């Protein structure tokens, strides 16, 4: 079971998501698996903030500078210098010793500072609890606490997702990031995100 870090403590692991855009076929299986795994009560309900299903993953369509159509899957970046953590007035948002940004619902007032401070706009409000939700959801946290893969990684039929420890040079994510060209989102925002996008050729 992971533990909450105190101020000044460094995580023992730096767990990171890798999304390989060169493999993703935009089939939506991860988006739906996230909902049915983490928020089954929301399977037939709209997430009104994003005007979408209640998933912790958002799809954004865009165009590259060269005019090539692109799709981007965005979720919590588990930033090493997370604005949401710094702006939370109640200490509800915290980093655990895996380097994951988590929420303690017992301490959350639903003030939404974390939602508005996130430069990636990846948090949403549960319409009943009025508390913010994001990656990882409760069930996925159970999975990763046991050293397993989250739902999005398991459900991907194209092998486009991975999750692992950046501190372990032999982890699959470390190997991927060493051998393939990747980028982080809003690199210059100073958030030090741990969500990596492997780029296609």
């Amino acid at each position, binding site marked *: 079971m992971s533990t909450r870090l105190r101020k000044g403590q460094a995580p023992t692991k730096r767990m990171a998501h890798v999304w390989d855009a*060169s493999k993703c076929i935009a089939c939506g299986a991860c988006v*739906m698996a996230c909902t*049915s795994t983490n928020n089954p009560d929301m399977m037939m309900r709209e997430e009104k903030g994003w005007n979408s299903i209640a998933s912790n993953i958002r799809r954004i*369509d865009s165009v590259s500078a060269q005019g090539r159509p692109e799709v981007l899957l965005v979720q919590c970046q588990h930033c090493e210098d997370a604005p949401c953590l710094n702006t939370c007035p109640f200490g509800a948002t915290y980093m655990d010793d895996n380097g994951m940004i988590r929420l303690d619902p017992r301490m959350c007032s639903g003030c939404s500072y974390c939602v508005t401070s996130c430069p990636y706009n990846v948090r949403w409000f549960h319409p009943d609890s009025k508390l913010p939700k994001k990656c990882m959801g409760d069930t996925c946290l*159970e*999975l990763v606490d046991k050293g397993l893969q989250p739902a999005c990684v398991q459900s991907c039929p194209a092998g486009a997702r991975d999750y692992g420890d950046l501190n372990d040079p032999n982890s699959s994510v470390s190997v991927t990031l060493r051998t393939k060209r990747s980028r982080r989102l809003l690199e210059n925002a100073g958030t030090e995100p741990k969500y990596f996008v492997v780029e*296609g050729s």
Partner: protein
Amino acid sequence: MKPTEQQAISRRKFLIGSAAVAAGVLLADKGWVDAQPFFTPEGVDVEGLERAGYLVRHTICHQCGAGCGLTALVKKDAPPSEENMLIFGNQHPEHPQRGMCGRGATAPYTWNSPLRLRKPLKRVGERGEGSFEEVSWDQALDEIAAKVREIVERDGAKAMAFSTHDYKAEMQLLAWPLGSPNVISQASTCNTAGVVGRRWMMGSGFDHHATIDPDYDNIRYVLFPGRSLNAPIGAVHRLAKAREHGAKVVFLNPAHPDVAFANSDWIPCVPGTDAAFMLGVAHVLVSEEKYDESFVLNQTNLPFLLKADGKPLTQEDLVADGDANVFALMSVDGEIVFHDAAGIQPELTYAGTVTLADGSDAAVTTAWNRLVTHLADYTPGNAAQITGVPAATITRVARDLFIMRGVVEDTWYNTRNGNDTDVIMGLMTVNALLGNLDQVGGLGVRLGSKLPGMIGRASDGTVSLITGDSFLMEHTKTIDKEIYPETNATFDAVFQGILDEQPYPITGLMLVGATIFHRDPNVARAIEAIKKLDLLVTVDIVHQEICDWSDYVLPAEMFLERDHIKGIGWTQGISVALQRKVTDPPAGVDARPDAWIMLEILRRAYPQRAAMVGHYDWMSDVATWKNEWMHPIEELRIEGLANAWNRDPAEVRRELEENGFITFQPKQYGLTPYNRPFASPSGRLEVYAFRPVLRGYREHGFATYFDPPAYTMPRAEDEFFLVNGKSPIGGSGVAGLAFPTQYLVDNRLWLNPADAERLGIAMDDEVEVEGLDTGWKAKVNVNVTPRVIAGTAFVYSYSGGHRQKVVADDPRFAKLSKGLAPHWFSKSWVDPITGSNSNNASVRIRRA
């Protein structure tokens, strides 16, 4: 993998590694703590699970027609609910189509959807109004049976027509004993062009869209003309692996397919011009001598001699009492030889004169020479003018295909523009020149599974069930084949029968899983036809738009609720899969099996005819019927399958239940056509198709480009081609109505930025779309995106424009009513020979 190793894995380890443990944790999270210990990194203890009160059920996904392998875990003795079952992709590493895609992921959303049909419905308002009363199964079936009997006795049995996407055999159980041959599927709006094109070039048995497929495991270069490859998921998965190994993947399409996001090249082309592209590629291959000469000489009919009238020179032409089905070639020794002789060494470029049996001389030339002349019109420059693809790109694709020993995929859904059969012929011409058939990394030909069907009909009209029951049918020719001689199924002929009463009247129609308004072009005409029917019955899972127009709507079992065995398509080896019942329908859903529904209507109309197919009044109880009729038939099919492969039926049954599938034979390369000839007249891959020439359908047998005849060509600056395609999430009749589809599938109209700027249209603006041929007008929001070529508009099919009342009345599904159904605008042009219909259209677009 050796059979013994596979068996060892299958019993205990259908999941392996972290996936197994993860599934266990998911179970625990759902309150299934007792099940968790059986999920370990070493595998899953199926027997332990079953002892502890859990069922493991492998099944076949049916959220679309691809049939991928799923696995479900279900609590024994618990009421059916989402909480009591967990569905995920079959994880067996040897399963040829294992996994769950975006469409499969909608299955749990469909099972207990608010749109699920729950009781038999009888129309109480006007057709199209969507007003129904719930009635009992007995009332619905009795009233339908009485109406069927009235139609049969008044208009004749042929006046009853039937249509379906996937349940043809079930419908034949009712139609054939009635005496109606008219079970006509949706093929003409899906695959007819490809089926006919392949049949013309390779013959029956090699024409099905799931028979020939790239060898993805070893592919080096694959070009997909018009196919988006969202399914089946095994092919998607293997293609992803191929990309990792450096395979080049290229899509030719007016709109950018979602799968092309994954490190693929997208070549945008003008709609309806794929044949010109293929012939441009063929031109480069021939002019630069980049073709497989041995394959061309020995496996194609390009060395065969043609007469001046375009017909092949035959033995009958040359020898008294010669055979018209034996074709002539010129040997390198300068002697005429016949194609059925052994050891032929043909001359590829012969042109000259031969003396015929009647003593006259005739000029002949090889098909190769004719091809070279034919391709002169398709220089890369000329093809570029037609397709909008730069000549350099066409040349590069041709060279890459040759250098990398690539293949062109032969498509699935291809009925778009009215000139689509020539697209298939064009791409198979390229494949013939590349000569990469049935080789490692080539275009593989799959052999049949030998799985016997439930019901079949011989050419003399004798209908036989696998049980041994049989009877004779008087009329066996379907109405579409009376109009379109080469079709595999053209439903438009039923509309002609209803509206024009030609060649004879159709007055009753039954549909099973047939989303007419999102399947058949020209919705206004469909409505006109439906209004004229005396009886329309729809059997489905969810409330489709066609239900609102039906006299009776009957709820059918979903794939999660049924047992069935079927072959696996789009594979290299020969595999069969078992669809096992996972759960009962949810509370409040009184769904019945499709076959039982058909048989009960038959029994209530004509009990003695029901007896001809082994169905009796004591089978009116569904449970009894399943035990006494359905299960014995499935067992007989398994027995027939086992016998065909010299296996023990009990062992086959056990393996199917344990793994969900059996691969009876892995891929054997180099078989077709090298050691097993095609079923074409020559036994070869006929680049010059003899069949349409000999039957007088065509003047010559080559693929040709001509402007799409299916719609008025767009000319003015506000006129566009309207094309459509399937999304990987909502791209089927069932998945299109799933809750997530309305959020995850874009139901706006795509326009290229250059077109939007010219018309002063910005992102999300509302525009009015008007069909140039149908006059249908609709409003829709616009997505301005480079994902569609200039001059063309695109919408996803199935994912918008749902107009049924239950959708409009339920705010949770309101978004499904937005967007367009492309068939509002397509006029239903049907090729007079092939019977292939066309889904694309042309429209005028203005700011609303």
